[in-house]
């Protein structure tokens, strides 16, 4: 899948939760959404992008979520 598209989609999710004033709640919102709605290969590719580029193009909130909750997001990914 196009990494650029996955980054855009992740940032869209981040934009929804960004208005949440409580930062941990917002981080959890992003993480939870990615974990519950993204198929493992999509999450895997996003994490690969994180590893390869440090998360280039990801919004600060999304970057925070994928960095903080990397282990949860890696659940179910076949390697």
């Amino acid at each position, binding site marked *: *899948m*196009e990494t650029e598209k996955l980054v855009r989609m992740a940032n*869209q*999710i981040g934009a*929804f939760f960004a*208005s*949440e*004033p409580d930062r941990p709640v917002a981080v959890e919102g992003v993480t939870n959404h990615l974990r519950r*709605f993204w*198929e493992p290969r999509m999450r895997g590719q996003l994490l690969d992008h994180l590893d390869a580029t440090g998360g280039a193009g990801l919004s600060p909130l999304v970057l925070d979520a994928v960095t903080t909750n990397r282990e949860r997001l890696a659940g179910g990914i076949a390697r």
Partner: protein
Amino acid sequence: MYSVKVPDAGTPAVVGPVVVTLEIDGMVVAVPEGTSVMRAAADAGVRVPKLCATETLDAFGSCRLCLVEIEGRRGFPASCTTSVQPGMKVRTQTPKLAQLRRGVMELYISDHPLDCLTCPANGNCELQEMAGVVGLREVRYGLDGQNHLQAEKDTSNPYFTFDPSKCIVCSRCVRACEEIQGTFALTVDGRGFASVISPGGGDFMSSECVSCGACVQACPTATLMENTIVDRGQPDHVVDTTCAYCGVGCSFRAEMRGNEVVRMVPSKDGRANAGHSCVKGRFAWGYATHKDRVTRPLIRASIEDPWREVSWEEAIAYTASEIRRIQATYGRGAAGGITSSRCTNEETWLVQKLVRGAFGVNNVDTCARVCHSPTGYGLKTTLGESAGTQDFESVEYADVIVVIGANPTEGHPVFASRLKRRLREGAKLIVVDPRAIELVRQPHVEASFHLQLRPGTNVAVANALAHVIVTEGLADEHFVRERCEWGEFEKWRAFVSEARNSPEATEALTGVPAASLRGAARLYASAGNAAIYYGLGVTEHSQGSTMVIAIANLAMATGNLGRPGVGVNPLRGQNNVQGSCDMGSFPHELPGYRHVSDPVVRASFERDWGVRIDPEPGLRIPNMFDAALDGSFKALYVQGEDIAQSDPDLHHVHAALRAMECVIVQDLFLNETARFAHVFLPGASFLEKDGTFTNAERRIGRVRKVMPPLAGKADWEVTMDLARALGFPMDYAHPSEIMEEIARLMPTFAGVCYEKLDRLGSIQWPCNEAAPEGTPVMHVEQFVRGKGKFALTEYVPTDERTSARFPLLLTTGRILSQYNVGAQTRRTENVRWHAADVLEIHPHDAEQRGIRAGDRVVVASRKGETTLSVVLTERVAPGVVYTTFHHPESGANIVTTDYSDWATNCPEYKVTAVQVRRASERDRAAELAAGK
């Protein structure tokens, strides 16, 4: 009129607590106050002769056939227009009444062609029947006097004929058009003997008639008669079923001669439609036996090869071997399926079961992905259930009706008629739409406010409405405190109260004048009962889910949930969108909207099905396309959808389909997707199988087989065969057994079975121990999730932006006569109303581009370009253009983008930046070369 007789009490039923007792022909009768004498008599089993009266219309009192005698009253009042009174003594049969009635009939018959033996209504004509009832034996006036017997037939409408020579001017057709349909296309032209029924002075086809069939159904003679009855004769039996077009889910009586449908008539006792219909359900069913139907399975190794007709056995074996080969080569996750919102619940259930049980993955999705998936997300988040809150009848109790991003008169016409009736009774209307849809202003209906927002700014408008409600103290805090999470409400209140969300601050962005927006907010929040109805103009945006949440927030904040007349009501596009979602078609949810990660839920399915269920979410349709292009998704089973026409950014979709190694299409016709398929499995229309559909109000209705499947198998049988071939046994003798499994595994369907459906007619889920006969209105005592949850709805502009190169915004929608990608309706006479998709453009924008009405124009976006003819109209605002997507050659989705909703990937069909220019000679040549 119904061919196979349906009782008709003559005037509408009255409901009320006060009961009146009277005497009719010596019998004591007790009926609700306000009931007509005619209906009271009918309830007592006494038939009063009638012609102008029918229980679907208000009493009119014109035919003078239903005269009665009432003790103590002078004269002979019409029983249809006379209300019962306590102690009234009525006589319906006396020598004087008989004489009067014969006299009336004699006059009618003196101007009526006596061609009963060759008349299409022979044996089913109320005039003929009443002549017998009143004992007419002679017509003294002869036929030589002035008459209408030579009046010319109007055959302009493809579905029915108007023969004025048979007309008795009872006005039932005119009243049906007004009272039931609400179009006011018919009138009585002239006076006295010269009175004739007229569709506005011209013929039916050129009039405002919308061909709903209400007039034809109301006609007591053969004056308005379906052409199928004229051609084929009267039916011999009837089968009750459910329409397979839009999400209203009308109940129909399929009137049959053997295995041939001769007429579809809406059921008076159908809870969704209350006896009404539209041009599609009533007349456009001929596609079912169209010559284009493919009735033999087809296979080919490559999409470049010609198709090869094979047996069912070979097709199924080949398909199964290909799926297994692909999964062995590329991994389990390389296969998936798409369920159909046009197929039954039972068929959808089997497809998702096949994908989960036999493919071993959750790569199952449905076309709701591209329409109402944000509804599922938004309503589940806020209210706790992924469904609309009301029944359709609820609109009859609404004081203010808000229609957001929906066009009910085109997309959900039968519900629109009900809505318009409520508006004529005095309810107020607010329309939120970039276009001036028909509801904004039409006969006897005018919106109090039309918030004509710029496409893509829904959420900003909703936040501004909330701002007014909160800052002007219009919120129902008592309701919120009792029913919702107060802390979340406070957070939301603080958010929407910010000055940046005020109507004044958002006006420049949304294009909605602040004063109008404030007025609309006050009207909505101050109504006794305010109901929101919304459509794809809400969901098909990059913020579709946010907008659904914003709508739910508004309803909760104003206490407009949990009783008749209020609510949040998604108008579903296809007949079984609700059902296909309920049945577990989403890749992250098992049936009943329960997440695949829930071990308890998964275990219940694993026990029942004898397989392991993958705990990880699967690919959604757009993700499947992306995965196909990166080489990790290779096999797709598509039942009853045409993704190669209906999905956005078609160049991308087509490339993805080309990249797959086995595309299996199961459909009635070789649709656009079949161009990319390796296997074609013939489908069965709704007339050829048993099952259920679930409409937009969660109403489960029976679909009944009226003819054998043309290809020999119903769709559920084909899926069953495929599952068996893949080593995953499915063994159902009838769809009722599938429903037993559904009821066993889905708590919201626990009380549903075919016997109960047959007994009750239809059932709205949840149907279980707590609600054994179903649930018309949800969230009555508390929300399904417990406390309602307010969520913050920050407006985030779409990434799709206008620019100097693409300065206009294209938005897409539907038209009354066509349905979705048109696979069905394009194969009917409905093409007479809409033979091609056109582009609507504002005259100002057209003038700037040197475009004249009817010109061919090129519509170009960042994704592609297509050519359409233009219509100049002020229905669209300057800067906005609009088209439909019913014809594949128009290529509307060539230009739409792959931007999608943040939560669900529902495509943003409603916002595409485009440029429009007159087609050049070179463009025209290219069009011709492409066969357009």
